[in-house]
C-alpha cells in the first residue's frame, strides 16, 4: 500500500518531471513514477508525447543563437549607429 501511494502522483508533478527529463535532469525513480502515471492518465500521455516530439524537432533543426557576449557587442555597435542617425 505504501509503495502504491509513493508511486502515484498528481498530473502537475508528472508534467514537471516530464519537463525536467527533456533536459536530462530527472532521476531514475522520477522516470519510473512518470511512466507509471502515463499508464493510466491519457492527458499526461499526450503531453509527454508532444514534449518529446518538441525536443526531437529542436534537436533535429540544429537551431542556434548568438551567445550573450557577441549579442552585447552587436548591441553596442548598433546603438552607436542609432546615435549617429539621431534615433534615441
Amino acid at each position, binding site marked *: 500500500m505504501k509503495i502504491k501511494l509513493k508511486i502515484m502522483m498528481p498530473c502537475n508533478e508528472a508534467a514537471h518531471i516530464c519537463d525536467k527529463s527533456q533536459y536530462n*535532469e530527472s532521476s531514475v525513480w522520477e522516470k519510473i513514477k512518470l511512466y507509471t502515471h502515463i499508464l493510466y492518465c491519457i492527458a499526461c500521455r499526450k503531453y509527454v508525447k508532444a514534449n518529446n516530439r518538441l525536443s526531437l524537432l529542436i534537436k533535429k533543426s540544429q537551431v542556434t543563437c548568438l551567445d550573450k557576449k557577441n549579442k552585447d557587442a552587436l548591441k553596442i555597435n548598433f546603438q552607436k549607429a*542609432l546615435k549617429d542617425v539621431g534615433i534615441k
Partner: protein
Amino acid sequence: MPKHVLNPNKWIDLYVDYLFNYTISRVNNRDIAQDLVQETFLAGLKSMKNFKGEATERTWLISILKRKIIDYYRKINSNKGKAEIRITSNNDTENEGDWLENRVADPFDKTAEDTIQNKELGDAIYKCLSKLPKKHADIFRMKTIEGIETEDICNELKITPSNLWVIIHRARTAMALCLKEDWF
C-alpha cells in the same frame, strides 16, 4: 491593411536570434553570420526611408539579409578565381569530361532535402518563439537552445528554480501548440 512601422530600438532584442539562425543555416560560419546580421541592421537603419510599411519589420529585414548573403557568396566566388565545376549531364558534343562518375547519383545529395527541411524547421521554431512573451522566450531559448544550466539562468535573471520550471512548462506547451499544425 494596417501599415507597419519601424522601431529600430527593438530590432536587436526582437530579431537578432531569428536573423542569426537564418544566416548560419545558409553560410555555416558563426563569425560570418554575425557580421552579415550586423551589416543587415546597419543597412536597414540607412534605408529606413525606403520602408513602405507593406511588410512586417522582420520580413523587411530578412529581405535585406537575403541580399547580404547573396553579396557574400558573390564576393567569395570572385576571390576564388571562379573555380569551375563542370557538370556534363547529357551533352554529347564533346567527349571531354564525359565520365561515368558524372552520371551517377551523388550519395551525399540525399541529405539535401533534410537540410532544406531543417532550415524551414529552424525558421518555424523562431517564428513560434517570437509569439511567446519575451521573458518566456528568453528563458526557453537560454535553457533549450543555448543549453545553460538551470542554476545559472536563475542567478542571471534572479528567479527561483520553481519559477523557471513553470515558465519552461508554459513555453513548451505554447511551442508544441504552435508547431503542431505543420510539424507534429
